[in-house]
């Protein structure tokens, strides 16, 4: 399956977390929110200025900046 950074995903697209490349504070925050490898999620939408992005993961909605989404690699069915 192709792997893309979360930033590149389109609204409504689904994926599974492949890897989180962040360490330290950002990494810890990402993991606290349940974004660990193997977690499925769906891109819910983006803020009016295209950033941050909102995703639906583990039955809740999480928003994160594109610059943070860059650290998250996602397995997707196909690259949109």
């Amino acid at each position, binding site marked *: 399956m192709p792997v893309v950074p979360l930033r590149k995903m389109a609204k409504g697209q689904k994926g599974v977390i492949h890897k989180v490349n962040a360490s330290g504070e950002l*990494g*810890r925050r990402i993991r*606290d929110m349940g974004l*660990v490898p193997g977690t499925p999620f769906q891109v819910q939408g983006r803020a*009016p*200025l295209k950033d941050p992005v909102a995703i639906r993961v583990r039955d809740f909605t*999480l928003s994160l900046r594109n610059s*943070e989404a860059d650290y998250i690699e996602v397995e997707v069915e196909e690259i949109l």
Partner: protein
Amino acid sequence: MNDSQSYLIALAGNPNCGKTTLFNAITGARQHVGNYPGITVEKKEGYCNVNGRQLRFVDLPGTYSLTAYSLEELVARNVLVMEKPRVAVNIIDASNLERNLYLTIQLFEMGIPVVIALNMVDVAEGRGIEINADELSRKIGVPVTKMVARSGRGKDELLEETLALAEKNPEWSPLNISYGSDIDPVLTEMESDIIAAKFLTDLYPPRWTALKYLESDEEIIKKGAAADGGLSAKLEKTVARVTDHLRKTLDTYPEAVIADHRYGFISALLKSGVVRRKHETDRLYLSDKIDQFLTHRFLGPVVMCLILYGLYYFAFTYSKIPTDLLKSAIASFSGFVEGSLPPGPLRSLVVSGVINGVGGILGFVPIILFMFLGIAFLEDSGYLARAAFMLDRVFRIFGLHGSSFMAYVVGGGIAGGCGVPGVMATRTLRSPKERIATILTVPFMNCGAKLPVFALLIAAFFAEHEARIMFIITVLSWGTALVISKVLRSTILRGPTSPFLLELPPYRLPTLRGLVIHTTERAWLYLRKAGTTILGISIILWALMNFPQFPNERKEAFEAQRLRIASVLTEEQRAAVLAEAKSGDALPPELAAIRSQILAVDHAEAQATLRYSIAGRIGTGLEHLTQFCGFDWRTNVALLGGFAAKEVIVSTLGTAYSLGRVESEESLTLSEHLARDPSWNPLVGFALIVFCMLYSPCFVAVACIVKEAGSWKWGVFSILFNTAVAFLLAILIYQGGRILGIGV
């Protein structure tokens, strides 16, 4: 009831899981809000009685985790370790089980006896998620009670389970889960070293300490280094070895592996028989549908502006009747006291100092109540998080963070907050530079204390356009705050941005109880301030304005002037002039002219008296500077008083004008007075609004800034810097307006 008969219970849970609702439902009015010593994270405590036993609840800050990531997390952890509650009630959002259990696992790792309150089962069921509480309880080995905190369903069972566990008083037993073949052996090795050296074992379970070393937890490592530097260094070396190994083999970190295994443990728990889903998981919920509209690219920002405008409309419209009633009640009380006390310093103190001072503030309680109610509604409904989501991109431009929005709003971004909690709310920001930039700009927001000043000036000069002016004021304060923070972030506070990661909780209709508690809590704080600080300040200012006493020879000079004017009158005419003051009967034109000459002398004397006082002298001295923005010495005196608390500006102006008021004039409200005063016009009014909005924070806020920013230098900076900004902008408005001929 003494302490031995009551049990301390901690209430732990994620943000947005209904923890506050449950706390309110359990403790009702029997709660106390304070601060943790030395820091300003809110500490809520309350109690309830169950079967004749008292349960004392401490409401831990809502956190996702128990790392040392934020002050809230540290506080939650330290309460568990230091105060050793008998039981932790862990409240979990049933519709969001996996992530909520992440905190539960960390409570288990510490070993505290836990009772689980499985909240919002109704919401979960509505979403087709069914949870088998008995099965969950059996698998994790702690009691699980299904409940709905909003309606109180399941509350009694929860309290009984809690009491039962507290009475059993089990030993703390940390849960040992496997973190995989790379971590486990190291963890065991570290654990035995820790046990052998009794390293921090009086505070923490040994395995937990080892785990925190592996997670590079700053607080624990610091404590460890202080307790036993040698062992601490050895543990850190071990961690470095594992870290290096994990980097080389799996390109990951120990803390990532630990988190993965915690989530793995949770998945395994929930795998069979605990959760049953009726629908597909990617179904759109009502909340998502609302979001498609409220965070829509084009509609979202428009709706946001409408919501803010609507809030003002709501607050101003509905507070009008109670405000008018309260004001007339205060006016007639003031008149009654004035009539029943003999003239002299005591009457002056009571009427001018106390009643007009404090009464002026009480008159604004209704509007503040309505504002607080509106903000509480937006906060509890989940809308504020969306606003942060939509605005983060904008905030980042100015070197801030979406969460700065929360601090701004609490501080008065939607008018009616308070700079003190606003400054405190910045602690959700981790980057010190973003935080200090937010701390320094939060006081530009329109806190509840500035509202009376605005309301006064709006009533005097912009009565027709209340909502519109308030909207302009809001936009202006935001604009200034953002521009100034950009300036700060690109000069003295230059540095990188911090992570955003914000949960967008499902929209919920706020509970009435929650709104009432929230609103009355804030209104009570405001009233208490009015009753204590502001009462004291009013009296001090009254003294400043009355002392030193006007010298007798100057009093005599004014008296001589009056006699000279009156000398042309017959005895009879003199009596008629005096009587006019009381009866209001019209005088013949020639007598009326003389009467107004005498009044002019009275007025001049009153002004000279106030000007002679200490406050008058300071204010007059400052006129050299403030003439450029159109403020006279009376305004300056009021602004000086405003450093104590912004509401004092209103009460000081009130005192200043009632001192200057001539006895015979019909009683005018202060705003009518200003509207008629020739030295005032809408332009001066607006320049003063802007100055009040931006100048030095009140001393309570300054004290808070010093504490939060960690240095008194930032406090001094905020006083001087903010006043300079306010002064420059007020000059710009006043001079610009005069050149363009607007509002003069």
